[in-house]
């Protein structure tokens, strides 16, 4: 945790530039899926926090993905927060990253999942 904190607060960097990533949100039977565009962010620069019902995604663009003339002075950070409803099992949230797209899966809690109700013959 401390290491990540250091990445985000590199003292050599004079300017932090924040970008709100473009996101798609889908609903599936058992979960919600969030896909966010964070080009240039490697897995190790990514931080996903869930606190008090707020999901925050934060990822620093790798220096080599910035143009040579600006990479010394600027840190580019993708950052966005989402309010998550109570019907999400926050302990079971999982995330993957592929080709600059972050996918977060937010499973619905058991009571919300569709289920069949058996009719018993009396």
């Amino acid at each position, binding site marked *: 945790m401390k290491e990540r904190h250091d990445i985000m607060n590199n003292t050599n960097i004079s300017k932090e530039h924040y970008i709100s990533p473009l996101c798609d949100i889908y609903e599936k039977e058992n979960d919600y899926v969030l896909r966010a565009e964070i*080009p240039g962010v490697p897995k190790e620069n990514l931080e996903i926090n869930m606190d008090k019902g707020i999901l925050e995604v934060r990822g620093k663009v790798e220096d080599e993905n910035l143009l040579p003339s600006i990479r010394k002075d600027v840190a580019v950070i993708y950052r966005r927060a989402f309010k998550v409803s109570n019907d999400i099992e926050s302990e079971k949230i999982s995330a993957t990253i*592929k080709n600059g797209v972050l996918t977060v899966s937010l499973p619905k809690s058991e009571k919300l999942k569709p289920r069949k109700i058996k009719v018993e013959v009396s």
Partner: protein
Amino acid sequence: MNWLSRRDYDKNNDLFSSFRKRVNSLFDDFLSDSPVSMKNFDFEPTVDIDEDEKNIYVKADLPGMNEKDIDISINNNVLTIKGERSEEDEDKDKNKHRIERRYGYFERSFSLPEHVVTDKAKAKYKNGVLKLEIPKDEKKAKSKKISIEAK
């Protein structure tokens, strides 16, 4: 050196850009061989361009693509990056709550300076970023000194 692509020109002016699109569509039919194609496209990826003594660097944000779906060409010193991005198959019939990302055909063109070695251009796609490195021809790039003959 002129980095302004024809498409970037008056990009911030919606009135003119929609007018330009209509004019472009008129020319589409008989200008199909033009190095800067004027096809309709669904989105324009953001591109940064930079240079140092040795190279010209082009960086395009293209998250969520496969290498094989990106097409890069240099024709008459015009660099063209184009391709198509489609939604993940598993997303297609889902209940959509919010769609901000752009899908479909994209294309961007830039005129390069004369003194680049296009044969030695290199391209890399990693973490959703396309990076191009186009070396400069140092001999050609050197400025010429012209002496004045005294009479």
